[in-house]
């Protein structure tokens, strides 16, 4: 029931703060990776190169699907902005359902930009069903498709190091974030501007996906502080011998 209470509390906060953020947008702290992301999107359109967006291999049946959904929100905005590009972005993923969702999201972005006729189904690809087969199928895209920036956002494991290595060889920008800790460790050493922890879930807010994303960040902060207080309080009580 505690979990249900936290859930209800989060829902109420989310809805209320979403309405509030629609009226007064939030001022977000500077994250270099997302600044680079916005810049790379514009440069790709201007240079006639393409973006490579990889959503990882997150299964929507597991908790790793949350990072995949965050990647889809970012994909929606990027697809809308790059719809006028000569080379549309390529979206790769290691899960079949995620591939279908990425295609549909890209099409929504093109439709919002009024360029639905520019959309191609081949823009969303499933490159492999296992992590390393997914990485093996992603490497040729990052190497041969005139990619100027590689964006890894989702559930990625250690195989992300291979994709990062290819991006480094091609001298293309790498913006990567994963909910997997080993992947975060690897990407911290590989990417120019690493994203750590829940910064992955802030992608929607930084690309302008909507007020709900900004509200989500605020709810996360509130709940985090509640957790901190709970942990400290529980530790203190445990230290004082008060069991529960």
């Amino acid at each position: 029931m505690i979990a249900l209470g936290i859930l209800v509390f989060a829902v109420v906060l989310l809805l209320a703060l979403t309405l509030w953020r629609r009226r007064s947008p939030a001022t977000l702290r500077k994250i270099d990776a997302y600044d680079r992301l916005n810049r790379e999107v514009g440069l790709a359109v201007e240079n006639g190169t393409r973006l490579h967006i990889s959503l990882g291999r997150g299964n929507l049946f597991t908790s790793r699907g949350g990072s995949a959904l965050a990647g889809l929100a970012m994909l929606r905005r990027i697809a809308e902005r790059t719809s006028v590009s000569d080379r549309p972005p390529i979206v790769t993923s290691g899960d079949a359902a995620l591939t279908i969702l990425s295609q549909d999201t890209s099409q929504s972005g093109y439709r919002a930009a009024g360029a639905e006729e520019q959309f191609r189904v081949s823009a969303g690809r499933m490159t492999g069903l296992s992590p390393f087969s997914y990485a093996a199928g992603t490497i040729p895209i990052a190497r041969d498709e005139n990619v100027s920036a590689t964006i890894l956002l989702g559930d990625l494991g250690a195989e992300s190091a291979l994709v990062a290595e290819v991006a480094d060889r091609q001298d293309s920008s790498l913006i990567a974030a994963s909910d997997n800790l080993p992947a975060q460790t690897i990407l911290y050493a590989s990417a120019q501007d690493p994203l750590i922890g829940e910064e992955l879930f802030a992608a929607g807010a930084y690309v302008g996906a909507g007020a709900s994303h900004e509200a989500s960040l605020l709810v996360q902060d509130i709940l985090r502080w509640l957790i901190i207080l709970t942990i400290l309080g529980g530790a203190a009580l445990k230290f004082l011998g008060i069991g529960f």
Partner: protein
Amino acid sequence: MRVFTAAFAISSGLIVLLGYFFQIPALMQLRLILTDWAIVIAGFAVLIGIFNLIAVQMEKIRTRQKGSVFGAALVLSLIVTFGFGLLLGPEDPFMRLAVDAVIVPVEAALMAILAVTLIYASMRLLRRRVDLMSVLFLTVAVIFLAAIMPTPFGQLLGSQFIIDFAGMFSRGGARGLLLGIALGTLLTGLRVLFAIDRPYGGN
């Protein structure tokens, strides 16, 4: 249509979610049914994904792009494996040979390349980014490796202390990261649950 999909998504999500919290037989039964439906759809999504993979590779072969040869090998091997799997079954020694001789060695090799890649990336980290965190990162990594490294003389002195002490910070930090990730996953799921984000189209 978009309203119908949004309504169906919301109702399904709420039923499954409430089924976790409330042990109502009807609710539980609905949850199981919806879960079964989702599993079936995910299975068909795998087939669709495979068809998408074939289509992309065929397009690459047709337009004779770079790497189209490997695309042809992929499509050919897929067809052969699928055919033998249907005919012989997954327990057939031929299928086991495909797994033991092809799949596992290939992925293991990629894992080995990963090791070299990580070492190379670690070596170039300070050239790409020179700051306190990078230096600390490398230092801790080296210390950990040294602590767990077996030596002809046994473990190094104080390796266990290092592992426990440094592990304390690493495990704590990892826990914090996992909590943040869990919160982000929670809010993301709630946005999808209440149709604020609709990745299934119409957004």
